C-alpha cells in the first residue's frame, strides 16, 4: 500500500443552509486531505459543522461550493446510480443512533448491502456470519434489533459497514449513545479493523476516548478547520485537551 495516498480530498468546501430568510454558513471553506488507512477523528463542539462535513464526505449531501474527491473522483460529478454504488461498495456508514433496520434480524441487516452489491444469497450469508463473529455476535445472528443492547446493535452496524469491504468507514459519533465501556469496546473494534484491514476510518465525534486511537485529529471550529494534529503531537498536548473546549 502506498505511503501517502489520499483517499479523501476536500477542497474549499462551503455549505449554506437556508433557514427561512436567514443563511446559515455551516462550513466556511474546508480543506482536508485524508491519507488511506488512517484512523481520523473529526473533533469539535456541537454546531461546529462536523456532521455537515461528515455528510459531504459520505456523499449524503452536496456542498454549496467546493469539491469533495473520493479516490480522486469528484463525487459531485456522479449520477444517482454511481452515487448509490459508491455508498454501497466504497463507504461503510456507522451512525450515532445505530440505524439498524428494525424489521430485519442481525444477519439480514449485515447481508443487505451485500445483496445490493450483487452477491448471491449463500455467499452473503456466509460472509455475514463471518462478520458477525468478527464483532463477537456470531451466536446472535437471528436476533431482532430490539433484542440486542445498544453496544450489540452498534457492533451489528459495524459488521454491516464492513459488508462490502469498503475503503472508508464513516462513523458519525459512534459512541454517542453508548456507555463508557461499550463505547470503548466499539472504538477498540474500529481501531483493530482499521489496522487489520487497512480501512480508513473517519469518525466525527466529541468523545475524547477516540483521541487515544486516532492517527490524526482534525479540529473543526465554527465551520473551519482549526488545526490538524498527528498522533505524535497529540500525546504531548493531551494534558491540555480539557481546556480546549
Amino acid at each position, binding site marked *: 500500500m502506498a505511503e501517502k495516498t489520499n483517499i479523501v480530498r476536500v477542497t474549499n468546501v462551503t455549505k449554506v443552509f437556508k433557514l427561512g430568510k436567514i443563511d446559515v454558513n455551516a462550513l466556511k471553506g474546508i480543506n482536508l486531505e485524508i491519507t488511506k488507512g488512517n484512523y481520523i477523528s473529526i473533533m469539535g463542539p456541537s454546531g461546529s459543522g462536523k456532521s455537515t462535513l461528515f455528510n459531504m464526505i459520505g456523499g*449524503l449531501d452536496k456542498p454549496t461550493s467546493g469539491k469533495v474527491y473520493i479516490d480522486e473522483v469528484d463525487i459531485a460529478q456522479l449520477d444517482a446510480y454511481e452515487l448509490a*454504488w459508491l*455508498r454501497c461498495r466504497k463507504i461503510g456508514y456507522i451512525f450515532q443512533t445505530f440505524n439498524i433496520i*428494525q424489521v430485519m434480524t442481525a444477519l439480514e441487516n449485515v447481508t443487505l448491502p451485500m445483496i445490493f*452489491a450483487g452477491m448471491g444469497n449463500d455467499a452473503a450469508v456466509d460472509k455475514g456470519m463471518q462478520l458477525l463473529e468478527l464483532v463477537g455476535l456470531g451466536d446472535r445472528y437471528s436476533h431482532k434489533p430490539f433484542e440486542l443492547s445498544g453496544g450489540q446493535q452498534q457492533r451489528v452496524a459495524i459488521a454491516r459497514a464492513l459488508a462490502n469491504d*469498503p475503503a472508508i468507514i464513516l462513523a458519525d459519533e459512534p459512541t454517542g449513545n453508548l456507555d463508557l465501556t461499550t463505547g470503548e469496546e466499539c472504538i477498540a473494534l474500529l481501531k483493530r479493523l482499521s489496522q487489520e484491514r487497512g480501512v480508513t476510518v473517519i469518525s466525527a465525534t466529541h468523545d475524547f476516548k477516540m483521541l487515544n486511537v486516532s492517527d490524526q485529529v482534525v479540529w473543526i471550529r465554527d465551520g473551519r478547520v482549526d488545526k490538524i494534529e498527528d498522533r505524535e503531537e497529540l500525546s504531548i498536548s493531551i494534558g491540555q485537551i480539557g481546556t480546549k473546549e
Partner: protein
Amino acid sequence: MSDASILPETVNASGRVQRQVVLPFLKSVEISLKSIKVRFFRSLITTMSLVLAVSFLSFINVSNDVANGMLATRNPDLRATLIRSGYDLGPEDTSVGSNAKQRWIVILSLLVCVVGIVNAQLMAVTERFREIGTMKCLGALDRFVLRLFILEAGMQGLAGASVGALAGAIFSLTNAWLRFGTEAVASVSLTNLLISIGIATSVGCLLSLLGVFYPALVAARMQPVEAMRVEQ
C-alpha cells in the same frame, strides 16, 4: 453476479458505470412480506377499508347477477317477487343493470377507500423514514424503495380485494337465499358470478396500487440526509 472478492480500490472510475447496485426481485418480495408481517395489525387496518369497499362493489354486482338469474328462469313468481322487493322492471325487461344511484354510491365508496389508503400509506412512509434512509445509505436506489412499497401494496391489495370480493358475494347470495329462497340462488349463472368476483378483485388491487403510488414516490425521492435528520 459481480465478483465479490475484488477490492473496491482496484476498480477505477470508468468501472463504476458497469457496476450497479441490484436488488433481486425475489429478495424484494421477501423484504415486503416481512414488513407486512412485522406491521401486521397496521397492514390489517389499511387493508380493511379496501375489504369493505370491494365487498360493497361485489355485493352490488352479485345481487344484480342473482336478479338476472331469477329473470332468466322466466318464472313469473320470481319476477313478481323481484318487483315486490323494489326492482324497477318493465313488462318487457329481461335483465337488470346497475342503476345510476347504485353506481354513484359504489364510486363514492371506492373514492373514500383510495383516500384512506393514501392516508395510511403516507403514515407508513413517515414511520419508516429512518429505515428508508438507512437503506439508501447502504446503496439502495430510488426504484428499490418504490418497488418495495408497490409490492407491499400489491400484496395487501390482492389479499384484501379477494377477501372483500368473496365476502361481498357470499353476503349477497345469503341475502338472496333468505329473501327469495333456494330457487333464486340456484338460478344464478356461475360464469356471471365469477366475473363479478373477478372484477371486484381487480378493481381492489388497482385501487391499492393507485393509493400507494404517491406515498411510495415520496419515500423513494427522499434524500438520505433528510431521512437521517428525523428524530425518532
